[in-house]
C-alpha cells in the first residue's frame, strides 16, 4: 500500500512526493509496518527560502477584472434605495398623465408640459417587477421610487397602440445606447396595464437561442420545444396578469396526463399556473391551448412585449444543433416561431399589438435593418436572411432621439432639488443663487450630449 504525501509549493502547485514511512525501506512487505499505528500525514507547506520574500496573499478573494456584477449587486441593495428621500408627493403617475393626454386628441402634439418626470402607479409597479422591466444599470438606487422621464415618443407609441388595437400595430423602439429604450418600453407596459390588457412578455430572449434551455423535437409540428422556457414564460405571465387571467373562464375541457381542467372549476390562470401534475412533454400543448383561449376571449386586449429584441434576430441560426449537427434556425424553435408569427400577423388576437425594444448590447443585423426599413437593400449582403425579412416587414420603427436642452434642464433641476449635484459645479454661477440655465448650457448639456444615461453618469460618477 502506497501512501503519498501531497506537497504544496508556495506557488500553489500540487506535487507528489515519494511515500514517507518512518523506519522502513520503500517497498518492503514486512507485516510489522502495517501493524504499527499509521503515521499522520498532513499537507506540508514548503517554507520560503531565506532571503526571499514570499508573495503576500490577500485575505479577500478579489473578483475578476472588468466584472461589474458585485458592484451592481451592492448598489441595488434595498438598504440604499430606502435611505433615499421619498418623492411620492411631488410626482404624478405615468398612466394618469398619458390617459389625460390621449383622451384630448388635439393636445397630443402640444409639448408644453412634456418632458415630465413621473413615477409608476403601485399596481403596475408590482407587475413590472414581476416582468423584470427594471434593469441593472438604470441608476434607480438614487431615488426611493422608480422615477422616469416621460417623453413625447412614449405618448406616440401609446396612442398608436390604443387607437388601432384591432389592427394589432407592431412597433419596435430603437435608439443609441442609454437613450431610454427599456424605460420607454416599461412606460408603455405600465400604461397598457392600466388599460386592463394582458401583457405577454418574453424575458431574456437571448437565452432562447443561445442554448440555455433543453430542447426536443415535436414530431407533430416539426419544431423544437423548450419546456423549461415555457415554464418560465408562464410564471411571468401568471404573476403579472393574475387578476385578468383568473377572470377568464376556460371554454373547453383540457386533460394533460392526470391533470384535468374544466370550464366550471378552472380559469385560464389555473392553466397558466402549470401544476406539477402536468407532464413536461405536454407543456407545449398547454401553451398552444393557452394561446387558443386568449384568442377566443374578447374581454381584454393582449400585447406581446420583448426587450432586447435584436438579440433574438441577430443571427438566423440558433446555437442549437440537430442530430446531423446542422444549425437549427431560430424559426425552428417553437417559442421564437410563435413570437415571429405574432409579429408577422399569422397569429392574431381580437385586440392587441406588439411592442419591441432593441438593446445596444447587441447589434442590429442588416436583415433587421432592411426588414423594418431602416436601410435600403444591399444586394451584396450575403448575410441577408430572406425568411426573417418576411416576418418583420410590417414592423414600424420608433427611434428615440437625443434629449433636447429643455429635457436636460428638467433633469438637472431634478438632480439639483435632490442634492445630487456636487458643490464644485454649483459654485459655477456668479450670484448667490444657482443659475440652472448656465449649469445646463455650460456643463450638463455638453457632458451628457443629450443622452440620459450619460447625464446621470456625469452628475454622479464623474468628479474629475
Amino acid at each position, binding site marked *: 500500500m502506497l501512501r503519498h504525501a501531497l506537497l504544496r509549493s508556495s506557488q500553489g502547485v500540487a506535487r507528489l512526493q515519494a511515500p514517507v514511512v518512518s523506519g522502513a525501506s520503500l517497498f518492503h512487505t514486512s507485516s510489522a509496518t502495517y501493524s504499527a499505528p499509521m503515521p499522520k500525514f498532513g499537507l506540508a507547506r514548503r517554507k520560503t527560502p531565506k532571503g526571499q520574500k514570499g508573495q503576500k496573499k*490577500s*485575505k*479577500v*478573494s478579489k*473578483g475578476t477584472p472588468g*466584472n*461589474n456584477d*458585485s*458592484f451592481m449587486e*451592492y*448598489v441595488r441593495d434595498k438598504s*440604499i434605495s430606502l*435611505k433615499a*428621500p421619498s418623492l411620492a408627493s411631488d410626482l404624478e403617475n405615468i398612466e394618469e398623465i398619458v390617459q389625460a393626454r390621449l383622451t384630448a386628441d388635439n393636445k397630443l402634439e402640444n409639448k408644453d408640459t412634456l418632458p415630465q418626470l413621473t413615477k409608476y402607479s403601485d399596481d403596475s409597479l408590482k407587475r413590472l417587477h414581476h416582468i423584470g422591466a427594471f434593469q441593472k444599470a438604470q441608476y434607480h438606487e*438614487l431615488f426611493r421610487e422608480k422615477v422616469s422621464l416621460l417623453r413625447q415618443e412614449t405618448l406616440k407609441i401609446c396612442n398608436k397602440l390604443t387607437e388601432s388595437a384591432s389592427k394589432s400595430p407592431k412597433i419596435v423602439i430603437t435608439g443609441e445606447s442609454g437613450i431610454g429604450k427599456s424605460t420607454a418600453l416599461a412606460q408603455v407596459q405600465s400604461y397598457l396595464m392600466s388599460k386592463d390588457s394582458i401583457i405577454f412578455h418574453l424575458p431574456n430572449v437571448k437565452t432562447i437561442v*443561445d*442554448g*440555455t*434551455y*433543453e*430542447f*426536443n*423535437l415535436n*414530431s407533430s409540428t*416539426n419544431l*423544437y420545444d423548450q419546456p423549461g422556457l415555457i415554464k418560465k414564460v408562464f410564471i411571468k405571465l401568471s404573476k403579472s396578469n393574475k387578476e385578468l387571467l383568473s377572470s377568464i373562464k376556460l371554454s373547453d375541457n383540457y386533460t394533460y396526463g392526470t391533470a384535468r381542467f374544466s370550464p366550471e372549476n378552472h380559469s385560464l390562470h389555473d392553466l397558466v399556473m402549470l401544476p406539477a401534475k402536468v407532464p413536461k412533454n405536454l407543456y407545449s400543448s398547454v401553451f398552444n391551448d393557452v394561446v387558443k383561449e386568449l384568442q377566443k376571449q374578447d374581454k381584454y386586449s393582449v400585447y406581446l412585449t420583448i426587450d432586447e429584441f435584436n438579440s433574438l434576430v441577430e443571427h*438566423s*441560426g440558433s*446555437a*442549437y*444543433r*440537430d*442530430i*446531423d449537427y*446542422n*444549425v*437549427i*434556425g431560430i424559426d425552428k424553435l417553437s417559442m421564437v416561431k410563435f413570437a415571429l408569427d405574432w409579429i408577422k400577423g399569422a397569429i392574431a388576437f381580437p385586440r392587441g399589438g406588439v411592442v419591441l425594444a432593441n438593446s445596444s448590447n447587441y447589434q442590429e443585423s442588416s436583415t433587421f435593418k432592411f426588414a423594418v426599413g431602416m436601410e435600403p*437593400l*444591399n*444586394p*451584396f449582403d*450575403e*448575410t*441577408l*436572411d*430572406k*425568411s426573417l*425579412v*418576411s416576418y418583420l416587414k410590417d414592423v414600424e420603427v420608433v427611434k428615440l432621439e437625443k434629449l433636447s436642452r429643455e429635457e436636460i434642464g428638467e433633469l438637472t433641476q431634478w438632480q439639483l432639488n435632490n*442634492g*445630487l449635484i*456636487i*458643490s*464644485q459645479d454649483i459654485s459655477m454661477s456668479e450670484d448667490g443663487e444657482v443659475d440652472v440655465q448656465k449649469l445646463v448650457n455650460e456643463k450638463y448639456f455638453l457632458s451628457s450630449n443629450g443622452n440620459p444615461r450619460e447625464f446621470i453618469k456625469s452628475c*454622479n*460618477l*464623474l*468628479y*474629475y
Partner: protein
Amino acid sequence: MSYLSMALRVLPRRSLQKTATPFVTRRLWLPSACRYNSSAAPATTINNNQPPLDITDKDIDLTEDVDEWLSAIQQLRGEFSNNGKTFNPETSLAPPGENNVYIELMEQTQSKPTAAQIAEATTLRAKEVPKKNDELLEHCVNLMMRHGKKARAEKFMARALYLMKLKLRIDPVVAFKDILERMSPLMIVKNFKNGTAKSTNIPVPLGRRQRLRIAFGWILTRASERPAKDFSVRLGEELIAAYNGDSKGFEYRAEMHKDAIQYRSYIKL
C-alpha cells in the same frame, strides 16, 4: 454604400449573382443539451423552403451605372489633360479666356479692439482659469493607481464616492476631503544619524500633501482588508466608516502624535 465602393466590389466578382449564399455562418459550439431526444426524426435544415423575396437580378445589375461612371471619368480626364498637355493646376484650372490662375491677395485689414472689448479682456484676465481636475482627488487616484492604469483607478474612486453619496446623502468630494483632513497626522518622528553610534529620534512637522498622503495610505490598507469583492465597494465602505469616525486610521494618527510628544525634547527650535 458609395457607388465607387459598390463598383469595386462588383467588378472583380461578376459571378456573385449565382453563388450568393443567404445564411450567416455562426461560430461552432455544442450546447450541453444538444443531443437531447436524439432518436427523433431529423428536422429539415434552415436552408430549405425559403419563402421567396422579390429581390430580382435587376437590383444587382449595375452595367448601366458602370458605363456612366466610366464616361464621367473619361470626361474628367479630358478636362484636366488640357489638350494633350500634362496637368498643371495653375494653367488647367484657369477660367475661360485666361491662361493662368491669378489669386489676388486680400488686403490685410488691421482690426482695432473697441473699448468694451478691452474692458472685457481685462476682466477675463483677472479671473482664474478653473483647473480641470481636483488636485487632491487626482493625487489620491495616482496613489491608488497600479501598473499605470489610471482610468481604472479613476473608476474605483468615482464608484467609491458614488457609494458615499448614496449611503450618506452628502456631497462626497467635500466629505472625502474632510475625512483626510481629520485623519491626517501633524507630526512624524524621524530617525537622524549623526555619524557616530548614536542616533536620535526627532519629531518633524508634515506638509499638507505629506499628511494627506499618509492618511489615504491608511484608508487604502484598511480597505483592502475588507471582505467585499469589488475594490470600489471596499474603498467606499471604508470611507463611509471613516466618515462616521469608525476607522483604524484615527488610532494610527493618535499613536503618531503620542510618539511625537514622547520625543518632544529633541525638537530643534
